[in-house]
């Protein structure tokens, strides 16, 4: 009986881990890095995680969780509330539609998929914020941020994939 409870708790912890990891990434991404010029082009780790889980285990990161994560990013990051929520949902939606194509393909396809999705996300953020602030935002920082995000994706994807293989194997 007692062992049964532990097994259940263990399974629950595993199920919650994609959300927990993404949550931790949200917090890590706002830690002051003390690296010159980093703050403005810091890679969007939460976006990578949303993409990764949406491709690999969407049932463990439902749309409502993605929405809440986006709200948290907005709330902590000082962007208008709702912007990142919408961007994350778009990424999630685009991936959900293309999931059959992306699943089980070599890594570079997933990376390419991310490149396209993140480009859509960057463009969407830029348009939404420009509309919100009623001014055309300077695009260069956003382009650089996109590039650093793209460059860091394989590292995070590799870690998440290892995690998935170790703790989220389907029975």
């Amino acid at each position, binding site marked *: 009986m007692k062992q049964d409870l532990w097994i259940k708790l263990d399974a629950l912890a595993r199920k919650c881990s994609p959300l927990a990891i993404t949550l931790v990434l949200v*917090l*890590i991404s*706002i*830690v*002051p*890095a*003390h*690296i*010159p*010029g*980093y*703050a*403005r*082009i*810091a890679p*969007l780790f939460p976006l990578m995680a949303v993409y990764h889980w949406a491709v*690999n285990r969407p*049932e463990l990161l439902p*749309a*409502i969780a*993605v*929405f809440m994560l*986006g*709200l*948290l990013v907005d*709330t*902590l*990051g*000082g*962007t*208008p*509330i*709702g*912007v990142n*929520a*919408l961007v994350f*949902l778009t990424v*999630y*939606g685009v991936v*959900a539609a293309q999931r059959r194509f992306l*699943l*089980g393909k070599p890594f570079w396809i997933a990376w390419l998929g991310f490149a396209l999705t993140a480009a859509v996300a960057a463009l969407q*953020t830029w348009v*939404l*914020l420009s509309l*919100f*602030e009623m*001014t055309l*935002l*300077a695009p*260069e*920082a*956003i382009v*650089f*941020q996109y590039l650093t995000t793209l460059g860091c994706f394989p590292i995070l994807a590799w870690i998440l994939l290892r995690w998935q293989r170790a703790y989220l194997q*389907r029975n």
Partner: protein
Amino acid sequence: MDERTRPSYRLAAPIKSAAQRFAYAGLVVSAFALMLLAKADAVLLERVRIHVTDAVAPIMDFVSRPAAAVSEIVDQARMLADLRTENLHLREERARLVQWQTAALRMQAENADLKRILNFKPGPGARFVSARVIADTGGAYAQSLILNAGTRDGVRKGPAVVTGEGLVGRIAGVGQRSARVLLITDLNSRIPVLLEASATRAILAGDNSDQPRLMHLPPGAVVTPGERVVTSGHGGVLPPRFPVGVVASVSDGGIKVQPYVRRDRLEYVRVVDFELGGALDSEVTPRDAAGALRAAP
């Protein structure tokens, strides 16, 4: 990675998928609604933002310490490497500063004498609150910091945030134990400034780039690169004559200012609060100041 048995497909897949789609659409609409609400009623959502920030502040306070420690170690290693040049540089600087000290002491005495002659009533003193930067947020889209001090430490909305080098920004929102600083580089930052040499007034407007620009200069104003930019103190709240930066470039595209404060070096900052908070303008005469003091509750 391959697709195996999916439990969701076993039971009533079509219904479940329709429900999921419906929920997704609902969330997208909610996100839009929140953005509209943020545009229409900023106060309400700002309050939510403050509460959430407050809740996360202790975690960030904890998480940001290792990062700060690592950066300190790197700094120290770098310092060790150029100890000799640094020493030479410091000696030179010291010689220069001793001269300045003499000048400052003489001026202080002179200033005290003149104040006595004029029967000058000093303005309200400033109160300082020191705080640690626990989050650097916003990336390319917004420029703000989170501090680990809030209302319980005596921080309120509005005052300037400074370091020894210059102005960092202003307190944009404050919770019980955390506060949000809007950096001078943020798109929504507007700071009344003076060009020190020519005493020209202007507004320093952030545009999310590293170098905010000067706006609303009087017609015919001449600005040269290298000129110091200081706060004017107009509109109260901000301390007058506080260093902000130097004019970096003057072109058709605008006048760019390089701030003295380097964002990546920020760890401890000070919140400068004039106790009258906004009621007192910096350049009023002592009589006006006395009037403002009486008028204030």
